[in-house]
């Protein structure tokens, strides 16, 4: 399973009740529209809380990770479907 971990630009809808919904992200100079959020969960490393989102576009599964302390996004993984 190919792994990458890099800072990434993500467009997000913040809803009531701390709801976060990623809508699209940039990767390799291309905008990828998120078709489905297959899973989402939270974890913590030290004091920092992270939200993990497994999302799909038309061809792959990605893991986007939101760092709740500094509001940054990382792309953790790509899996071609």
């Amino acid at each position, binding site marked *: 399973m190919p792994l990458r971990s890099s800072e990434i630009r993500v467009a997000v809808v913040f809803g009531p009740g701390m709801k976060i919904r990623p809508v699209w992200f940039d990767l390799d100079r291309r905008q990828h529209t998120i078709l489905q959020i297959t*899973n989402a969960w939270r974890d913590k490393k030290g004091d920092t809380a992270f939200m993990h989102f497994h999302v799909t576009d038309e061809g792959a599964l990605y*893991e986007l990770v939101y760092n709740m302390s500094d509001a940054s996004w990382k792309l953790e993984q790509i899996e071609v479907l």
Partner: protein
Amino acid sequence: MERVIMHIDMNAFFASVEQQSNPALRGKPIAVTGSNQRTVILTASYEARAFGVKTGLTTWEARQKCPGLILVPTNNRLYTHVSSQIMKILLDYTPLVEVFSIDEAFLDISGSVTLFGGLERISYLIKSRIRARFGITCSIGIAPNKLLAKLASEMKKPDGLTIIREEDIPRTLEHMPIGELCGIGRKLAARLALYSIRTCGELGRYPLERLEKRFRLVGEKLHLMGLGIDDSPVVPSEEAEEVKSVGHSMTLKQDIRERVDILRFLLQLSEMVGRRARRYGVWGKTVHLTVRYADFSTIGKQESQPTHINLSDDIYRAAARVLDNLELQQPIRLLGIRLTCLQYQTSQLPLFPEEQARLKLTEAMDRVNNRHGDFTVMFASLLDQESMGSHVISPAWRPEGIRNVAVT
């Protein structure tokens, strides 16, 4: 190293596969039914379950509960294909995958959980890949052993993830009804209830000596189950015990009683058993015939052969002899043939020209059928049979090896 066992259970598997393969069915109450006229509900989508539709109901009963229910005939080939693909995904996370049934598997992830970033991450990775590729949700249970992992996966459905850690075991089991444990069925639960054992906590505390006295050999096993102890390993298919028999059975569309009709089904079953035995290079010394009557009573009789056999007509002749030694009491609803006392080595080549010709003929038939599908070339007396082949996915079905039965 602490054991970490994962149990994966696909939610409403057959119905989910159908909804995924036909978008018009998504979000609707559907039920998958058997392929013949005696049909019952095999599984129902969660939308249908909300109306009380469940496995085992007749289609009439199901429609009473849910008038808008969409009935979909079973498509076993599709389900076994999707299951095989899912089991392949699981092998990306550990080589220790035990296929428990078409929609369930155990994984020993003790050695790989850290590689994938922890229990939650590995679970969500698997769930996401299955969902993204097949549109199917699954429930995952993680625990220190198979017994508790299976229990955990049942605790949150659909699309659940439940982790039972070592320190959570007593609290989880204390009020858990014993019937929730895999291996304790309704009859056993009722017997245990006679001794006021209704929860796992009560089972674990019940004196071992008394359990052994009342339940003999299973007494100790029950005691351990009550305590949440299970040392059984996750056994991948390549390490599984050798198969001890090759068999097929079929429930007939209508009850039959005429010898000529029975023989026609026996020939079909013999070909199915023989084909599978030959594909995996096994020969059997005993042919066992199972007959189930219309009232569901079942009888079986077997005959030992002078040599090990696996040619369909040899199996058929033996089964026909067994049939002729049975005194049939009622019309028959199910027939089954099993080849047992298996030998896994090459049989002696036939010496006589007639035997050699028979072997060559069978090999030629197998080659054609392997290439173009089962029963492409068949015995002439089967020509007017409506549908041939296996229509039921046995609990023993596995994605590979001799237990991989092709279904239609």
